[in-house]
């Protein structure tokens, strides 16, 4: 009991308190508490920074894009799998779509790079034989978001579909029989029975993913970044890392990070409240 509680206090709550650093001028020798207060200086610095608008825009753009694409795909996959009667085929599809989830971020990014490489990548080789010009995919800021989002879908749809499949398996079979008697076809059954059956699980997962919006795939984005695509790929968390740890600008980076966490919290509470109103499902 005591070690885990100590863990949460030390590694989760002490950092929260340490976040007062955002309102101080950090001095290595004096430490967090000895450093002088500077009020909201660093927040003002952030809001006046011309890069700030781009950071916010990129962060929100990437997260909403991945939410819009990434959220429905596992649901559709689960619905489709649920219609399949051939157990062997169903199992194969499930096993295969699930597998990429185990690939690490580093490996995933290097796969993307190998596939999209302008000289040697298979995508450009195929495009070349079809008569298209080679594209430096990762060097195009306009393509960055799609590459990020769709590779994510590729990697995680099978994993995310599991919860929905479980929810579908839990639907009362008598509902299907009733629908059959009423003369519903398969598509109508899917819309009128399966979809409502998935709703509670879907709402919870939606809330959780909104809560993660500002924390969106830092590791992967950081690895995919290069000077050419930076205008579309620099997000708040990568900026915090560079400012804070690489440039040792602790106070400023803490202010940016704190701002990020606060937006996140507000978003989460909002969506949770909305979900409670609309569908009676919520996290608490």
């Amino acid at each position: 009991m005591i070690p885990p509680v100590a863990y949460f206090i030390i590694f989760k709550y002490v950092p929260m308190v340490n976040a007062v650093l955002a309102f101080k001028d950090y001095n290595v020798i004096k430490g967090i508490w000895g450093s002088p207060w500077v009020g909201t200086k660093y927040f003002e610095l952030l809001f006046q920074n011309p890069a700030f608008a781009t950071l916010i825009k990129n962060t929100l753009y990437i997260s909403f894009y991945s939410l819009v694409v990434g959220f429905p795909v596992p649901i559709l996959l689960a619905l489709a799998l649920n219609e399949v009667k051939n157990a062997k085929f169903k199992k194969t599809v499930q096993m295969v779509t699930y597998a990429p989830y185990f690939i690490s971020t580093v490996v995933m990014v290097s796969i993307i790079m190998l596939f999209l490489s302008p000289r040697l990548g298979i995508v450009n080789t195929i495009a070349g034989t079809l008569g298209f010009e080679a594209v430096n995919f990762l060097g195009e800021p306009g393509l960055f978001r799609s590459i990020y989002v769709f590779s994510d879908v590729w990697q995680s749809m099978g994993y995310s579909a599991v919860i929905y499949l479980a929810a579908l398996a839990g639907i009362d079979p008598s509902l299907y029989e009733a629908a059959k008697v009423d003369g519903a076809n398969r598509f109508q059954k899917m819309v009128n029975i399966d979809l409502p059956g998935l709703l509670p699980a879907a709402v919870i997962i939606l809330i959780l993913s909104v809560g993660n919006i500002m924390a969106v795939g830092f590791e992967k984005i950081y690895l995919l970044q290069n000077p050419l695509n930076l205008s579309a790929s620099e997000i708040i968390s990568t900026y915090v890392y560079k400012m804070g740890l690489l440039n040792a600008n602790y106070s400023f980076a803490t202010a940016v990070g704190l701002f990020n966490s606060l937006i996140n919290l507000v978003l989460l509470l909002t969506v949770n409240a909305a979900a409670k109103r609309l569908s009676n499902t919520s996290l608490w």
Partner: protein
Amino acid sequence: MSKLQSQAGSAVSQRSTIRESFGDRVFIAIIYLILTVVLIAVLYPLIYIVSSSLSSPAAVTSGKVWLWPVDMTLDGYKSVLRNDQVIMGYANSLFYTTIGTIISVALTIMIAYPLSKKTFVGRSPLMMFITFTMLFSGGLIPTYLVVKSMGLIDTRWALLIPNAIWVWQVIIARTFFQNSIPEELSEAADIDGCSDIRFIFSVILPLAKPIVAVLSLMYAVGQWNAYFDALIYLKTQSLYPLQLILRSILILSNSTGNMDVGEMVKQQQMAELMKFSLIVMASLPVLVIYPFVQRYFVQGMLIGSVKG
């Protein structure tokens, strides 16, 4: 769960006794078509990577490989195995994965079990105390400073401790304990004069084998695949886990230059091939146990999704 599935299964067979209408058959055909496309889209890159890793360097770089290996050779793997950095990274990762998993699972169970007991005073405040960390965090820099002030920077502990407990795993474990270990057991043990410690070791842990397996697998996969903590906390190369070494080889492409042209082309082709072999090697431990892992992962997700 299995009961539900078999119910659903019987419903399916009942349905099929009535002849499907034309519209339904078209619908099903479309679904099979879509799923086949999905299957190929997910499978193809995986096959391509494995095939490339087994092909000759020249075939890989000239784009001759598209499905099956061309000029089969194990050269890629041989040169990976000759790379001291990779071997060291492998050893380090094995260490971090083993020790890290033990620490994480132990800590998770230590907190999840009390949380599952209805008699435990302060259960819901403690739960809130934990789940709040999912909603709000101090951020990267303040956490870094804590780790630094504890003197963990550039030690192996930095990868084992600061991220040892995942709240989600605590919730999964708590739900499991709540649903599968009856309250009466601990009452009976109390009456028999069994101490709490003894109760945990001789009653709870044997019953908790499935959840220990689930937690271990999830933590182990997480630890094996992690790189970011190592990136920020470690400076000494000899402590680097495999993922960090992979990053420098695969993504930053730190290969040695200054050779004559013919040699360089060869070197470059070899470097390309090595990337494919490395990808396979790095994913191997997880993929080898994958069929086994998958079952438990699904189980873990399902336990976690039951509302507690």
